[in-house]
């Protein structure tokens, strides 16, 4: 580890922290219907959309109606993307003349991008037409991010409102998230990425002669516009197979910094939006502080593991020390231009935030480093998370935390002035338990059936880690992979689609139920017995609850994979 490495991590963290208040305040104004700087330009567009779609923006919905609208909208999204992928061979803007995508792969991809996961069992530049990339993958990245933001805003309203039977209007929340938040940031980010050298063209592959006189095909296409939303949405689905490790997806140190910032910006700022909408920014800062503790612990652990390197390399005379000519550490699967530091930071940010983007090959991380990335996801998207889903997942744990605190002192739990009763706790438990259930059940199944074992690129504990990582990534809607696993098989395409579907919609539904239940309640005045939930004590308690719940759920599985592999590596045995 080097001081310049720590300085880079600190600089990135400070920049993210500086964006929280302005972006959080802006989103609060957007979703509260207050005037914004973009209102003059986008207001007529927004009203035009409502007229065209016959939406009455003043008509609010009960949680159940809100949830059904969300499910119907996403069902149409899955079917539309599936149809696009299956018909791409007959459709225009396909300069490489790609044929239809296989049915199981098309289903996996359609569910993946509708659920904001972006698990990719395909290589983008060798499988999808430009139309599929633009009208399918990119559009669903926008829509799935807006869906997550809408759910988070509905839950915030549940906490902020008193005696309401409604939690907002799904169509209005979607429209505002797209028009006022995602599109403006993406337009600016796309122009920046084009300036930095990322292609944005509808021309097909380019032929080039190498120095040896051979012909090489260089893939390109409408890359920049897809990369901006892949990062901002917490989606992570790259244009190219190797994602942000490709020079056309991440050409410079500056784009690397901005890409990480795009991944974190909305998820971090939504904590401030929450604080403002419930009338006390301190509650938002408390949630962000809990996220920050877990983020810093994670990045420190991954950086330490990767900078320390692989002791087995010493036998081959490989020098892993940092010096003037090399960044040092475990450089297998990493870009020389990013080194162990920026690879560790990018991977931590991406697994914290449920964004599947990578700038290094995660399967080549040390078992300890890769294990921490897996653990980041296993903590249920609470460390910043994808837009919206990070905040509502953290609020689920806040409910569990106040419930446990209430049990300790025999008092009905409260959170931001709302009593947490049986309904909220039941819904929270449903939302939190369905994800580990699907991860562990599917990993166990894949471990014993021939179809599951057939895809493994490695044996022993590393092979188990590849399967565990895949189902964790799917159910936690991350999308990154230990790419030693060949997942483009009917078994993995269908089981991962199931994991992604359950991990997304079987969490969102109870979250909206909590929103509906809370919105109907009165606010309880603060008393001497109220647990302050905007103080350091609660932050530490919340972190403890998250770690204990995650540990109790996943420690046995992690022990069989990355933990045992780390000890094996230290004794000189590799898998």
């Amino acid at each position: 580890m080097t001081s310049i490495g720590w300085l880079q991590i600190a600089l990135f963290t400070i920049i993210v922290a500086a964006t929280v208040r302005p972006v959080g305040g802006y989103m609060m104004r957007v979703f509260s219907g207050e005037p914004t700087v973009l209102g003059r330009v986008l207001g007529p567009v927004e009203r035009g959309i409502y007229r065209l779609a016959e939406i009455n923006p003043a008509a609010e919905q009960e949680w159940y109606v809100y949830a059904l609208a969300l499910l119907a909208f996403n069902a149409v999204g899955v079917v539309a993307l599936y149809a696009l992928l299956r018909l791409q061979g007959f459709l225009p803007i396909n300069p490489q003349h790609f044929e239809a995508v296989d049915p199981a792969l098309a289903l996996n991809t359609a569910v993946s991008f509708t659920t904001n996961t972006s698990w990719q069992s395909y290589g983008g530049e060798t499988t999808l037409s430009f139309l599929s990339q633009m009208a399918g993958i990119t559009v669903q990245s926008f829509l799935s991010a807006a869906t997550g933001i809408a759910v988070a805003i509905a839950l915030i309203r549940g906490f902020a409102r008193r005696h309401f039977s409604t939690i907002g209007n799904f169509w209005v929340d979607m429209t505002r998230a797209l028009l006022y938040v995602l599109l403006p940031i993406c337009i600016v980010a796309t122009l920046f990425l084009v300036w930095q050298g990322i292609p944005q063209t509808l021309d097909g592959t380019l032929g080039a002669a190498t120095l040896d006189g051979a012909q090489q095909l260089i893939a390109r296409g409408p890359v920049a516009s897809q990369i901006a939303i892949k990062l901002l949405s917490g989606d992570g689905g790259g244009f190219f197979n190797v994602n942000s490790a490709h020079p056309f997806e991440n050409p410079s140190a500056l784009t690397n910094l901005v890409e990480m910032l795009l991944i974190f910006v909305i998820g971090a700022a939504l904590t401030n939006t929450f604080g403002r909408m419930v009338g006390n920014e301190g509650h938002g800062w408390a949630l962000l502080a809990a996220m920050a503790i877990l983020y810093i612990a994670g990045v420190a652990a991954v950086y330490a593991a990767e900078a320390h390197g692989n002791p087995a390399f010493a036998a081959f005379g490989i020098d892993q020390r940092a010096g003037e000519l090399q960044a040092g550490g475990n450089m297998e699967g990493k870009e020389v231009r990013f080194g162990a530091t920026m690879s560790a930071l990018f991977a931590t940010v991406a697994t914290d935030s449920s964004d599947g983007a990578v700038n290094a090959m995660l399967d080549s991380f040390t078992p300890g480093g890769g294990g921490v990335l897996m653990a980041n996801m296993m903590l249920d998207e609470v460390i910043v998370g994808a837009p919206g889903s990070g905040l509502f997942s953290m609020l689920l744990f806040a409910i569990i935390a106040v419930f446990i605190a209430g049990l300790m002192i025999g008092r009905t739990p409260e959170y931001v002035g709302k009593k947490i009763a049986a309904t909220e706790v039941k819904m929270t438990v449903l939302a939190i338990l369905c994800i580990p259930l699907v991860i562990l059940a599917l990993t166990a199944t894949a471990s014993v059936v021939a179809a599951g074992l057939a895809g493994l690129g490695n044996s022993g504990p590393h092979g188990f880690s590849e399967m565990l990582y895949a189902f964790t990534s799917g159910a936690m809607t991350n999308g990154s992979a230990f790419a030693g696993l060949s997942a483009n098989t009917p078994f993995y395409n269908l089981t991962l689609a199931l994991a992604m579907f359950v991990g997304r919609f079987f969490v969102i539904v109870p979250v909206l139920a909590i929103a509906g239940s809370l919105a109907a309640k009165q606010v309880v005045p603060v008393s001497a017995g109220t647990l302050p939930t905007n103080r350091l004590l609660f932050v530490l308690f919340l972190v403890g609850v998250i770690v204990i719940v995650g540990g109790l759920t996943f420690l046995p599985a992690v022990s069989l994979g990355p933990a045992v592999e780390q000890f094996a590596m230290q004794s000189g045995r590799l898998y």
Partner: protein
Amino acid sequence: MLDLLMMAVVVAAFAAAAAYAGLCNRLGRRPEMPDEDLR
């Protein structure tokens, strides 16, 4: 044929999610304990 099967899977999955929402709605409507401190 496979396409029809895949679409049937999608419809069944979303129908299950809608039924799950119905279950959550029923659970939420059950009468709760009086809203007062347990002590």
